[in-house]
Each structure stands twice: as structure tokens, then as C-alpha cells.
């Protein structure tokens, strides 16, 4: 059980979250009255042990074990909780920030490693894409017509009168320079390394 010491700032974790760039202006974590509106409409709560009200309570209790708790990875980021909260809190944003903390401390990196190819695509083309690692798995569910679509895509786009998907080379280079300076490129390398380690295990 999480215990608090006398004189300890119990709101420390909440305050860290409030200051995070991802947190909406005036996010109402400290105003949470545990009414449970968030949980009542949460799709993840309906099907798993995830409970947004409990997540917020643990944040307010400064329960840092939350960061390494697998439960935070169940949120759908649908923002339903965020849209109904009577005090402008957002369990969804709290969750996103907790996951970033988990990624920063290393424990969350294996969780996002399967998505690293999205970053590769972004650096190569300036465009997002469903990570190609999932292709075979998706093909099984989507059916072989989907594969044919990939083959025919250029022709179909032409038939629809749409221009090229690819950005000019100079713009892709600019995007790479920007992402190197924001720290994304290094971050992606670390995630990729984690993926390679996972694969060799």
C-alpha cells in the first residue's frame, strides 16, 4: 500500500502532470471529486480493469507505481472522459503524460517499440504510415483485396485526379533537420534499439 509521510507534498505527481506540455490549460486534476463520470463512459473500463477515476485518485495520492503499472496502457485516447468531466479534468491526458514518464524511465519503451516504423516513415517521407511490421497481421484480417489496393494505389489516385503523395526532397530534408533538433530523431533511435533487443531475445 502507498503510504504518505507527514509533511510530504501529496500533490507532487499531480503538479508535475499539470505542468506538462501535454496537459490542457487549466486541467482540473486538483478539482477531481471522484464522481466517476469518466469511468461510467470509458470503453476500456467496460472491458478491462482500467478505471480512469482510480487513475486520477492514484495520481492525487502520489502513487508513482502507476507509471510502471501496465494498466495505463489500456486507455483508447478517445477523450470521452475528458469531454464529460464536470471539473475540466482529463484522465485521458493524465494517461498520456504517465505513458511519457514510463517511456522516459525506460519501462515504457518496449511498449512503443512496435510503432517505431511510423517514425522511420516520417523521417524518410515526412508522412505517417501504419507501421509495416503490422502488414502481414492486417492482411490476414483485411483480406487479399487490400494487398491489391496497395498495388493499384497509384493508378487509382491518378483516376481520382489526385496529385503525388510524396513531398519535395527539400521539405523532407527540412523536416529531418527540425526533428533532429527537437530531439525526436534521438528518441526514435533509442526506441528502435529497444525493438532490436526485443527481437534478438
Amino acid at each position, binding site marked *: 500500500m502507498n503510504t504518505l509521510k507527514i509533511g510530504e507534498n501529496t500533490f507532487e505527481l499531480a503538479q508535475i502532470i499539470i505542468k506538462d506540455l501535454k496537459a490542457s490549460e487549466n486541467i482540473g486534476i486538483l478539482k477531481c471529486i471522484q464522481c466517476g463520470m469518466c469511468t461510467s463512459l470509458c470503453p476500456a473500463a467496460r472491458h478491462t480493469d482500467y478505471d480512469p477515476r482510480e487513475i486520477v485518485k492514484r495520481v492525487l495520492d502520489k502513487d508513482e507505481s502507476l507509471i510502471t503499472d501496465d494498466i495505463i*496502457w489500456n486507455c*483508447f485516447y478517445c477523450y470521452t472522459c*475528458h469531454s464529460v468531466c464536470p471539473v475540466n479534468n482529463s484522465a485521458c491526458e493524465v494517461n498520456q503524460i504517465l505513458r511519457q514518464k514510463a517511456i522516459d524511465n525506460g519501462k515504457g519503451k518496449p*511498449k512503443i517499440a512496435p*510503432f517505431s516504423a511510423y517514425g522511420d516513415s516520417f523521417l524518410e517521407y515526412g508522412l505517417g504510415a*501504419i507501421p509495416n511490421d503490422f502488414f502481414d497481421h492486417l492482411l490476414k484480417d483485411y*483480406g487479399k483485396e487490400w494487398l491489391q*489496393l496497395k498495388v493499384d494505389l497509384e493508378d487509382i489516385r491518378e*483516376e481520382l485526379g489526385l496529385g503525388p503523395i510524396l*513531398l519535395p526532397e527539400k521539405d523532407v530534408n527540412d523536416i529531418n533537420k527540425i526533428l533532429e533538433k527537437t530531439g525526436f530523431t534521438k528518441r526514435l533511435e533509442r526506441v528502435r534499439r529497444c525493438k532490436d533487443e526485443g527481437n534478438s531475445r
Partner: protein
Amino acid sequence: MKEIPDKEILLFKSCLVNVEYPGVESSTRFLFDKLGIEYIVSERQSCCTGLGHYSDLFDQFSTAALAARNFGIARELGHKNIATLCATCYAILKKSGNILNKQDHIRDSINKILDDSGVPDLKYNLEDMDSRSNIFHAVEILYNKVDEIQDLVEVDLSEIKVAAHHACHYCKVHHKDTIGNVRDPMVMETLARACGVQTVNWYDRKTNTCGNGFRQRYMNKDLSFSITAEKLMSLKENEVDILLHMCPNCQLQFDRNQKVIGESFGTEFNIICLNVSQFLALALGADPYKVVGIQTHTVPVEPILDKIKQIIHAYEV
């Protein structure tokens, strides 16, 4: 209601529209052209980072920096009203706009990065973009022209029943800027009704997420599908022919996965998925293959075309 522009619009391309449902872009362009909405598309625009952002791979600072670059391009082109084809682009850009306007030190750091990256012309000036009055979903631009759309309808759709899936990242993220009631959005039903189609205005699970949940579709497929199935069941009970979309990720979830979800429940749904632009383009007489792009859909759209043809035929006889 917020003021919605009909000119100086940058139609913001979407990664999933590009490769999965390109007909969403061509349909939107068809409608904008018909309605006299002045817009451009830029080959320089990058993606918003959405799928990477919400699978936690992208950090907020990098996402905001790329948004600043795209905002700079829109400003340079003299088209600073952005209309997105995807609900996640909409949410991401609005969030980034708010950060750039309200957090001075972040804006300064990003501007220094743009400067150092050789694109000082794309630097973000305070209040360049207003999240509420410059960043829109394309559906809002169309909603503003609903009366004009009504006058342009060319086919009889009265035998068809549609329901709408208003994307979470349109309705719920920046809920104060959403048109109508966030708990019972009617933007797409209003547009559909203008075309003379029957709409199911409320159905059980109407405001549910599509179930994609970014990482969830790929890492927790059963959980993801159980959410999608709830909505599909409700739509089936309501005998819906077409589910209208405003987000390619939701459309992908309901269209591409529908068969395999049906199989696991021992049923067939046969619910056609169309972006609301694709639906309106059909209603305004656009070619199903050369404009609407139904050839990229998994649940065949043809049965509905047959229905439309039959109706026209009945009138001719």
C-alpha cells in the same frame, strides 16, 4: 456557433486518406468546387504526426514544431484557414495552435529550431493561427453550406438509411469548439438529411469510440474489436445501410475489420462505410469510381449504387 470560412482554405491532406481512402479527398474537392469554396492543397505539407503521436511515439514538442512548420506554409500561401480530412489532424493542429499561442518559451524554442533548420520564413508569430477561427474539419466547411448542398442533390436516396459516427477526436478533444451537442452530435445527420436520406439520429453506443484506440488495434486486438462490435451490433439492430464517417481511422476500423468481427460473432453486418464527403458527392451525382473512389473500400459499396439506380429507374417507368 463559430464562424466558418469559405475561402483562403488549405485543405490539409491526411496520411490514411492518401493511401486507404483517397476518394475522401477527391470527393471533398468535388464538393468544394461545386460549392465555390476557394481552397488549395500544398505538396509541402507534412503529416500531423497523429498516428505516431497517439501511439506515444511522438512527443508533444516535436508534434507542435511540425505544426508550426505547416502553419507557416499555410500563411505563406495566403491560405491560413485549415480544413482537415481527418479528426485526429483536427485535434492535433488545434492543440498545437493553442500551445504556440499560449506558451511563449515553447514558441521561442520552436522558432529557434525553424531558424536553425534553414526555414526562418516559416517561423510562428504569436496569434498566426487561432485554434477556433482558423482550424476546422472539412465537414464543418460543408455544414456551413448545407442549404446550397440541398439545392444541388441529383439522385433520390429516400430508400436508404444512414447513421453517423462522429469521430471522438472531432467531438471530444476540443469539445467547446464542436458544433452542436457533444453528447449527441448531429453535424453529419444534418448534412445527410439535406440529401433526402433517412437518418437514424440516435442509436445505442452512438458516441462510442470506433475502438481503434491507436495502439489497441495493433497490440490488443480482441479488446479493440469488442468495442467496435458493440457499435456494429447496434447499427445492425437499427437496420442501417450506410455508416457515415469523418475520420479515416474510424472508417478503416469499421470497414476493413467488419468481416472478421462479424465472423467472430457468427454474423454478417454488411454496413457500408462512407466518409460524409463521399456520401454527399454521390448525392450530387459524382462518379462512384472516378470521384468517390469506392474501389478502395472493403465492404462493397455497389449494393447501394444498385439501390440508387433502381430508384431512378422506377421514376423513369
